[in-house]
């Protein structure tokens, strides 16, 4: 793969079979109706999608609900496998499909930093080094030994974000991370975006069109009919706005 490419999505299709009457994961259902095939509704999440994210590029994905944005992120992150086509990633990839993944409400903030940080690919040694900085940045120094369950949701998000920005990987996958926090938190996020622009390759999904237009180098618009357009942020965002 070309050195200047961070993510290569090559002709990817993904179909889900959704059981009409819920999932049949128990034997009872299979015994009671052994010859009755479960009714499935087939649902194309992605169809023949191809694009490349260049090294250091901020690449955003927009589109209506059900267009396949989340599925795309999960496939790129290696959580789902595509039915057809392939995804190639150059370098380490860390997905942020949610902030604070693995947070355990009963553990202290400090314990959660180690748990979540390790899940995101940091080593214990690195976390030992970062931990003070993480609490300072989150403005939670006095709460380090409190259980997360006693945190407000804003505090938890701040902590999660402070850990997330320490992650080492060259390729980031971000799903609506801005949707959770208050204005102050969003300001911090944008400051972070400014900082890493050009250094890390980013695949970003958002409904916040203004931020997409401001930060992206290119935008992918996934449509409900499984066609798509890629281009300059201003052009694509305007076209998307006009279509709705």
């Amino acid at each position, binding site marked *: 793969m070309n050195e200047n490419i961070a993510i290569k999505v090559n002709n990817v299709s993904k179909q889900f079979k959704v059981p009409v009457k819920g999932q049949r994961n128990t034997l009872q259902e299979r015994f009671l109706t052994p010859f009755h095939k479960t009714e499935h509704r087939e649902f194309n999440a992605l169809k023949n999608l191809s694009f490349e994210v260049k090294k250091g590029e901020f690449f955003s994905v927009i589109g209506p609900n059900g267009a396949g944005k989340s599925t795309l992120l999960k496939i790129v992150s290696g959580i789902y496998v595509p039915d057809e086509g392939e995804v190639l990633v150059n370098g380490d990839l860390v997905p942020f499909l949610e902030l604070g993944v693995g947070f355990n409400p009963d553990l202290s903030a400090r314990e959660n930093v180690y748990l979540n940080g390790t899940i995101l*690919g940091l080593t214990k040694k690195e976390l030992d080094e970062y931990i003070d900085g993480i609490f300072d940045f989150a403005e939670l120094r006095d709460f380090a030994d409190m259980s997360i369950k006693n945190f407000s949701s804003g505090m938890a998000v701040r902590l999660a974000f402070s850990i997330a920005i320490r992650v080492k990987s060259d390729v980031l996958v971000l799903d609506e991370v801005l949707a959770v926090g208050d204005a102050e938190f969003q300001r911090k996020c944008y400051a972070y975006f400014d900082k890493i622009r050009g250094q890390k390759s980013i695949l970003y999904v958002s409904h916040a069109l203004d931020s997409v237009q401001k930060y992206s180098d290119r935008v992918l618009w996934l449509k409900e009919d499984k066609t798509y357009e890629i281009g300059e942020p201003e052009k694509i965002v305007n076209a998307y706005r006009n279509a709705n």
Partner: protein
Amino acid sequence: MLSKNDIDLYKQFVKTIFKMRYKGSILGFLWVLLKPFFMFIILFVVFSSVSGQVGNLTSKQYAVYLLSGLVIYTFFNEGITWGMGSIMERANLILKINFKRDIVVISALTMALINFCINLMIVGVIGTVLDIQFSVIGVSYILLIGLVMFLGMYGISFFTSIWMVYVRDLAHIAELGLQLMFYASAVFFPIELIPERYRFVVEYNPIAIYIQTVREALTHKNIINLDFILISLAVAIVLVLVGRLYFKHSVKRVAEHF
């Protein structure tokens, strides 16, 4: 290939499971030791008063006899149950992050192994108090059996942890199977008490064989069934290797079925 982060993640998972079990209790970590200890004491008092003299064992030997059977069975029970549920339990994480999935399986098995070692130590303490002599070779043999079981259950968990996602009934089936195994393993009584014609249940049951072997090693310092243990070791290693391949292949598709 294991990275530094994989090893740290493994430690974090084990630590978290461990912490969560005793979180909020006043005695906390002490329960790890106290619970099996008192459990053993209760069983010992109940069963030694009921049976008095059992087979050719003194009542002190019987204590160790009973406890070692329980330790082996508990290890089996926890290893199978936790290994099987390991992927399902981490569904939330697996849907969000691309970490190495087999870490959750080995973490679950490690928890069972830690419990096994703790229980074994408690039996050692009780045995010493009861003035039973342990031999180095006997204890080493027991550790080997522990290793064989660990590997075997690790290999099995590569399969069951995946199957569990597709057929949720497995949890209930396993619970019944393990209950059956408990009675078919002669945990509470010497094999001699079982009528001749039913004895095959115990004689062909690997867990019962492990229990018998451990008991002989503990109470009479005898090394028995060596060939069976070595065959088990070979089978366990094959299970791990084949299981790993199956797991690596199948785990990619698991996330869609949670």
